């Protein structure tokens, strides 16, 4: 696998965990999953868990609610409330 440009995580502290997980995932994806052998291979699961815990913690700390975008506000109780003033640069992709 060639060296990758690092793409940051939403949590600065998660960058290294993200890098480790993605290196594992990219290898597993190309060598196992795409060849129909991925099903019972859990070699990346541990790294995934570490990375995920870090990301969920960062989302909590930055008060980012990823399901906010899917919520129906008009016509509900939330309509009369002021939105949070924090500028939100993250969105689900």
């Amino acid at each position, binding site marked *: 696998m060639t060296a990758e440009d690092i*793409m940051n*995580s939403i949590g600065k502290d998660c960058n290294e965990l993200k890098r480790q*997980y993605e290196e594992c995932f990219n290898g597993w994806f190309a060598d196992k999953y795409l060849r*129909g052998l991925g099903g019972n291979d859990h070699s990346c699961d541990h790294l995934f868990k570490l990375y995920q815990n870090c*990301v969920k913690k960062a989302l909590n700390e930055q008060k980012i609610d990823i399901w906010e975008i899917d919520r129906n506000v008009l016509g509900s109780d939330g309509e009369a409330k002021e939105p949070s003033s924090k500028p939100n640069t993250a969105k689900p992709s």
Partner: protein
Amino acid sequence: MKIWTSEHTFSHPWHTVVQAVWRKYPNPMNPAVVGIDVIDRDIGPTGVMRTHRLISCEWERLTYSPHPNQPNSTLLKQEAVITVHGIPLSSYFEDFVSRNISSNANKGRQAMEFVINKINCEVQELTQKTVKSVDELTVNAKRCISDEFVAKSPNYHFQGSK
């Protein structure tokens, strides 16, 4: 209502392209993307992989201020931070990104001119006539917009609204 759809063919096999999807960022064409995370991933009973990703973007900074030298004018300063590193021909890509941003900035300015013109037309209608109803204001303003805008921007094709 129209939904935009498109189909595109990459002249590469599927297994190559799908790997590129996971490794799409960073790339020189999307300098505004500053972070990407997998926030959920699982494989269903049929072997279908489902991934939920969170993308973090930082756009440009725009500052509008009264023009220091020209009366009745407004100065717009735009800043975008472009970081392209770690790839060959980075100066070529930085140039590419700059041109992309310039082109988008131009669209943004045209958009502003469009909206400013709309506001001016509405103000004009309000000050000139005794308006009988809000509908009449809208109709007259629309007429003003198409006349004014087409006159000032010969290259802009103004389509009637639905």
